[in-house]
């Protein structure tokens, strides 16, 4: 696979590390519940199809990216820095 890093261009998957599903949001603050955190840490949609996921360009620009990738065909639709991700994983 090649991931189209928005900063570095298309790079071999070998330069990246994977974290997984980008959708869950971390429940922030002292008010967060254990149940919400449990969901965030452990429960996944795991779709067979398009998946928004977090990749880290470890051997490149060190940016965390949100990559929309199809889990059956591996076709990548988009890759954006998480910092500017519209669907922002960031709070």
């Amino acid at each position, binding site marked *: 696979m090649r991931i189209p890093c928005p*900063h*570095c*261009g298309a*790079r*071999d998957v*070998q*330069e990246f590390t994977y974290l997984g599903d980008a959708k869950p949001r971390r429940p922030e603050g002292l008010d967060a519940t254990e149940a919400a955190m449990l969901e965030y840490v452990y429960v996944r949609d795991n779709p067979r199809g398009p998946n928004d996921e977090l990749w880290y360009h470890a*051997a*490149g*620009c*060190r*940016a965390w990216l949100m990559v929309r990738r199809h889990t059956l065909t591996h076709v990548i639709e988009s890759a954006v*820095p998480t*910092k500017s991700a519209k669907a922002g994983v960031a709070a």
Partner: protein
Amino acid sequence: MAEQATSSWCRRDAWAAIIQVGQIGAAGEPGVKVQLPANLQLATLIATTGSTGLERITKQLVGLDLPRSASIALSATHGLAWSGPGQWMLLARQRAGFSELTSLLSDEAAVSDQGDARAALCVSGRRAREVLAKGAMIDLHGKAFPVGATALTSFAHVGVQLWRIKDGPDGPAFEILVSRSMAASFWSWFAASAAEFGCNVARPG
């Protein structure tokens, strides 16, 4: 107590005991040439998000524009290499004045010295691209990687930053920064890869 500088504190760079000057591999006209730059100074600059002060002050202090994409701005004495979003590697070709320069920049950026953290080498020659292609998972073709382009990537499991400087008389030339601790492993790969073309290694000074 140490009152003054004594000669016992000599610098020893990352290539010491790793690289030997001279020809390696095939004999005859070397297809690859390696030069080890002396006195290369490096520092990471990370700008505050949204701040433009760094752009202004680097222009003022070293006369170079801060690259916004994966390229390097170079002068005879200094360089500014993009090294990640909001991050640059400042380089200077001589030691004098560097710490003053970085302290002037520290208001506009987080500055971290990296001059001792990298082992640098310049690779040129007719077969330079072929050698690097044995490790580079990036396209170094002239169109894809023109003079002034830079990339952070890894060669043979070793993290590197490289950029293309002005062509030499016999082809393209690349400067490569290697993590200091992995210099020996990098060189083991490089020497094996360059051997078939013959490689001349020189160290100024």
